[in-house]
């Protein structure tokens, strides 16, 4: 394949023009296709595995899809009204392998209320935990092997906060593993408790396809649940 240098006021053969554009078209530089180069949307790549651009310089990048080999936000639920549960479905833990959950609970309850997580609608006693807890100047620990859900965080009085970060190892053929950092019942400059949990879901066979986030009462408006995964 040759490359033709254009000269002022000099015509070139169509084939030479074609050769030139093959150089850039290998990377699908132009988002156009068909016999008349019609406009396309979401069809062509910029660069390819074999023909890569060296560096890219952008001020901002606006994505509507995934960023490869990075954490991608795949669900971001901000409640516009109170709700009792939020369920995320059409997940595939075998493909995604690891999830990162960030949850901010705003309590709509007058008393202590927890934000729970169930996997694949399993609410049998198939979960176990070991935790460390800091409550004021007291430190404690506990283990339980017959839990019906995973505690992510909790609120206290109306409008108080619970905040959670959870890493999930989601691939089947293993017990599913959860590492949780959270505080519960926060407001003003006060935090009731800080907890660090290891949880385990003893199901090794089923593909993780859904997560159910539930409370005893209601989650308040602006409660936020995000799920990230590496894609």
């Amino acid at each position: 394949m040759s490359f033709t240098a254009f000269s002022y006021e000099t015509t070139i053969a169509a084939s030479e023009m074609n050769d030139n554009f093959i150089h850039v078209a290998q990377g699908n530089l132009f988002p156009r296709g068909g016999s008349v180069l019609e406009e396309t949307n979401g069809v062509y790549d910029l660069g390819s595995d074999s023909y890569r651009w060296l560096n890219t310089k952008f001020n901002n990048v606006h994505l509507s899809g995934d960023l490869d080999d990075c954490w991608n936000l795949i669900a971001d639920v901000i409640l516009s009204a109170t709700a009792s549960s939020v369920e995320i479905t059409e997940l595939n833990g075998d493909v995604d392998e690891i999830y990162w959950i960030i949850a901010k609970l705003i309590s709509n309850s007058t008393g202590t209320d927890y934000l729970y997580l169930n996997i694949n609608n399993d609410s049998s006693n198939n979960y176990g935990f070991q935790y460390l807890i800091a409550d004021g100047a007291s430190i404690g620990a506990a283990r339980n092997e017959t839990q019906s859900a995973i505690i992510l965080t909790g609120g206290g009085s109306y409008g108080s906060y619970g905040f959670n970060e959870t890493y999930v190892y989601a691939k089947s053929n293993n017990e599913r593993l959860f590492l949780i950092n959270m505080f519960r019942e926060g407001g003003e400059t006060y935090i009731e408790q800080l907890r660090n949990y290891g949880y385990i879901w003893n199901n090794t066979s089923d593909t993780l396809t859904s997560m159910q986030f539930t409370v005893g009462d209601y989650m308040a408006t602006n409660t936020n649940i995000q799920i990230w995964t590496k894609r």
Partner: protein
Amino acid sequence: MKIIKTENETTEHGEFKVQTQSNGIKVRILKKPSASYKAKMAKRAEAEKARQVIEDERLERERLIKERMRDIAIKQLENEGKI
């Protein structure tokens, strides 16, 4: 991702808003829980509350024991003239 479709759905658990995202993931938000769903959640909350009460009592017992042991240790060290 964008929300490409929003539907309402009613099941035994109550009334849901179901959002389908452009990445294929669905979000189901329970807006109005049914009475049976509320009862189920209340039962779970009670169980957790009971477990927490037992746990709190155990922690308090541990705290008292540790405090007493500390007091005894301080007295012994004082008697031995080490502190």
